[in-house]
């Protein structure tokens, strides 16, 4: 039971980091970067390739993270900015970011081939016993990174003027620009953070998945499902959605059948979208609103 929970939270943190990458980009630009999953794959395969060439692990990891970040920013300049400059309300980024995803995936498939590439085991080789459950050091680091991502995001958004400016851009970019916000710089920053988080998720999950060019599809889709479960409006909730998805998927694997996590997330997201369309963590607001209207109605009746 504890093992299911801990393993679920670890996997969920990976989904959550990808979901946060989606959500932070969306928060600032109202664009979904469909190449996010591919950025995770890029960091994994670069580490695999560079380590195979004889580079030290840490150099491979740094290169992987930098590449994912740079590719995230490049996606903005290649696939998003031109489209939005042409028409601010265009939805053409749906196709153009997907195009970037396909190009990245095809390029890496061409270079690496479809076979699985080894990934340095690193911290994943060290197990830690926690009562009846076992985690590896890598998994514990993963959980810590997830926690750090949520807390860091919350602190910046809530307590720094820069975070508040980001929130202002999120709600009204035009007026934010009239108080001095460089909206383009914020968009670039969002795509950079998104790329970095996706790359980080790749480094953390690499020892488990190994590298192959089609990982981006899997993690892109699961990250997107986590985003739908948590709610797209708040990046911290997206991480929460990842955790819920992770725990329930591992539980489904354990209690329903070994392949249940292949289909279970889709059932889960359907249920979530049916019951609370704005995500699990927005439902509190909806409940409160419901009670408020009822109370207001009753006060009206009593008056």
């Amino acid at each position, binding site marked *: 039971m504890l093992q299911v929970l801990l393993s679920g939270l670890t996997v969920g943190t990976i989904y959550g980091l990808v979901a946060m990458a989606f959500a932070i980009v969306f928060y600032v630009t109202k664009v979904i970067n469909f190449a996010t999953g591919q950025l995770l794959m890029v960091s994994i395969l670069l580490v695999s390739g560079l380590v195979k060439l004889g580079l030290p692990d840490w150099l491979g990891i740094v290169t992987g993270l930098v590449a994912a970040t740079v590719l995230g920013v490049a996606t903005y300049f290649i696939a998003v900015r031109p489209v939005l400059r042409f028409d601010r309300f265009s939805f053409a980024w749906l196709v153009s970011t997907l195009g970037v995803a396909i190009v990245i995936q095809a390029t890496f498939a061409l270079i690496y081939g479809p076979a699985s590439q080894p990934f340095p085991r690193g911290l994943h080789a060290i197990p830690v016993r926690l009562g009846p459950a076992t985690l590896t050091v890598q998994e514990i680091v993963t959980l810590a990174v997830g926690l750090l991502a949520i807390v860091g995001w919350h602190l910046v958004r809530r307590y720094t*003027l820069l975070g508040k400016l980001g929130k202002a851009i999120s709600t009204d970019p035009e*007026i934010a620009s*009239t108080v001095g*916000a460089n909206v383009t710089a914020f968009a670039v920053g969002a795509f950079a953070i998104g790329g970095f988080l996706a790359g980080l998720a790749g480094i953390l999950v690499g020892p488990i998945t190994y590298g192959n060019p089609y990982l981006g599809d899997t993690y892109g889709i699961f990250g997107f499902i986590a985003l739908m479960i948590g709610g797209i409006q708040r990046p911290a909730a997206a991480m929460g959605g990842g955790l819920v998805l992770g725990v329930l998927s591992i539980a489904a694997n354990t209690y329903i059948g070994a392949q249940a996590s292949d289909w279970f997330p889709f059932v889960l997201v359907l249920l979530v979208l049916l019951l609370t369309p704005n995500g699990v963590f927005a439902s509190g607001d909806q409940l409160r609103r419901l009670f408020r209207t009822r109370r207001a109605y009753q006060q009206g009746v009593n008056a």
Partner: protein
Amino acid sequence: MSATTQTDALVVEGLSGGYDRFDVVHDIAFRVGCGEAVALLGPNGAGKTTVLRAIMGLLRHRRGRIEIDGTDVVAAPPHRIARGLAAMVPEGRRLFVGQSVEDNLRLGGIRLRGDRARTEELLAGVFELFPVIERYRDREATALSGGEQQMVAIGRMMMADPALMLLDEPSLGLAPLAIADLSAALRRLREQDRSILLVEQRVDIALEVCDRIYVLSGGRIVDEGRASDMGAEGRALIDAYLG
């Protein structure tokens, strides 16, 4: 009247512009002197908001010359113009949703974020002009009444300490009492020698607050004059335009 002097807060010459290559305003020319309050009057659809948006850098298609405090900004993006040249009270206030009154004000002054003392001084100035909103500083700004929200919007503009203040229909949608407060506040700003460009539909407020007025119709300036010269005849003319 046409001379460009160093002391002008705003000089606009030959300004044309609009949306998607479809011009809304044509060959506009006017000026706001330093410490002067000028009103832009005109009927709905005359292009008043478009002129204001062009000055603030929000209008992508604009040509001609727009000089704020001696700097040509016709090609500058809004976040550059916001660095001390101009600040705006937009039509409909547009406070930052989900943020407190104080955060809205501090965001208005974000260009001065390195200068703590100046920011606190400006904040004190806003609260001195609008004591009401100091009591609500921790409340969510958009939960305030219309009049109070307008005070926050004006305060947000004041926090930037700009060379030129732009106000787009601040009286719109306010209760009569709130409008009285508003015009008192605008007069106070005027007394502090701020350079102000006010777009209004309410001629009485414009004449009360401003030194000079321009009348805009069909995207062109059709009349101008001193507010003090506006007798009953002038008012009737303006009213006819505002129809």
